[in-house]
């Protein structure tokens, strides 16, 4: 699982480098976040482990799941959600103004609009 998540992380990063479309970049960003979450959830994972809940846990220490990565990832997911939400808000604004989701085109058109205002 660890290896898979790292491969996924760098694939997503490759996507960030190559994608021409803003929406695709956002998707790659989310994919990157997901890869990190998978990495964390796989930390110290083994088959047959139990959730650390309940008063009379019978399993040995080694067979109780570590609750910390899960707790961390809930926070990370929320922050990721907030960031993506702000990203999308800004992108919607830009797309409405420029009628495009292409990085270069949006850049060029938003510069042109500034020139017009001047």
């Amino acid at each position, binding site marked *: 699982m660890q290896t898979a998540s790292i491969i996924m992380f760098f694939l997503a990063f490759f996507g960030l*480098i190559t994608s021409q479309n803003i929406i695709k970049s956002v998707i790659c960003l989310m994919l*990157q976040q997901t890869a990190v979450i998978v990495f964390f959830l796989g930390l110290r994972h083994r088959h047959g482990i139990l959730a650390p809940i309940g008063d009379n846990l019978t399993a040995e220490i080694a067979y109780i799941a570590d609750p910390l990565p899960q707790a961390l990832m809930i926070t990370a997911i929320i922050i990721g959600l907030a960031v993506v939400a*702000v990203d999308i808000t800004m992108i919607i604004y*830009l797309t409405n103004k420029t009628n495009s989701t292409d990085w270069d085109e949006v850049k060029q058109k938003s510069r042109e609009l500034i020139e017009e205002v001047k």
Partner: protein
Amino acid sequence: MLPYFVIAPLLIAVFLYLFSSSRASRIVAIIAQAVFVVFTLVLFLESRHGEIYTAVGGYRGVLGITLTADMLSASLVMLTAVLFLIAAIYGLKEPSSKLYWLLMFIWEGLIIGIFFSRDFFNVFVLLEVATLIVAVLIMYVRENRSMFDGVIFLMVNTAVIQFYLLGLGYIYMLTGTLDMAVATAAIAQMESSQLILPYTLIMAPIVFKCALVPLASWLPKVQGIPRAPAAVAAILSGLHVKCALFLFIRFQEVFAPVATEGFYIVLGIVTAVTSIIMAFSQKDIRLILAYSSTAQVGLIMIGLNLDEYAATGSLLHIINHAVFKAALFLGAGIIVRMYRTPDITKISGLIKRSPILSITTMMAILGIAGAPFFNGSISKYFMMAESGGLVFWILNIINLGTIILFVRYTKILFGPDTSNKSVQIDVNKQISVAMLAVMCLAMGIGGVWLANFLFGVDVELNFWGYFEKAVIFAASVAIALFVNKYVKNDNFFLARVRSLDLNFRGMCVCIGVLFAVMLVFMQI
């Protein structure tokens, strides 16, 4: 006790959000902020007797989240409080948006949180939320350019912080803790070959946040946005980047077995030289200041990795740079409003229009250039004191570059007055810039005492050494005047440099390249 220092600015923020329509509530907030400055001073005096340590929620040791204030973080918290006080005075009359005031004070709380935090994951959360706040602060003026640069800023920052999060996972896997103090002890036992991957994953984002070349371009991009509040630009280079430098110092301590000083010295030199060339090619005064910020960060980076004396100089320079760069940015905000253009070739005659602002700007320039008796000279003196040979000359050349840059900047003071006469200068803005300028001079005269007081290190100023620096300064000014007379900004080479612009994909490539280079460097 320490959590209250993070919560207090948040309370001010909420108070202002509820009542910000009236001028009176802003004055109340400024008074509250001034009281807060006094409290940070008390905290600093307290931290001189030993580290102050708070376990949030009462869980001690590995389980809890700890906040710690040692002298370095307490002095930086004091700086944060002072700068936000001045930014609040600056913005007393405008902008009127409630959102602006809310976000500014939340930002203060977050920055203070970063300085106290001793937990890897806390740092991640605070950095990420601070990024979000900066993104909203620069784009709330709702202009296409600011939106576009805001999107790039936010997305690149998010992409790069994922590396940090992955590195944090590695740390947890290796040591079983996210507490920096415990992790330091565990890492000290390990082989450096084991640490290469987590170290690179954690340091690459920090290098990005420090705005070092090749990743420097996000900072000027954000600071050069037209109509973005000047105070945001001032805090960005005054404090936001300093958070990253502070984390750099902390993480270098955590990863003590990994020896990488040489790499950062080279990176710092490259950053400083490139930024000075970039700054010299710009026409927008805010961009000149922004690129000179990255040059100073490069200088600090060199100093931090040289020797103990230079490291003290660098710490002092972190504080000095925050003061004079804030003064310059806030001054530039007034100037841009007054002349209705940020173009340096179209601004002239400031000395006729506003003598007070000219004097304060000049004082800040003398500070950044390292003129004798101003604060920059003290920190630069300590940086160069122990170094000899090649490094000494490189540092002097970088300083010469800064002087060339700011001799060019002084052009706005002289010549015929081209300002728009109908625009009034607000008194509160002038007061805030003047406060910073006076601090430049005071911190220069009491510089040695300040270094002893803030960092508890025993440094002293050699009179002849300082005199030598003054002579070098005078020679540099002469060279700078000469260069500015003969090298024109319309030069073909400089025009090419000016048009250089990294897009989003370019920045991602740079992150990848930096990551790969760091990995390869560590393997050798």
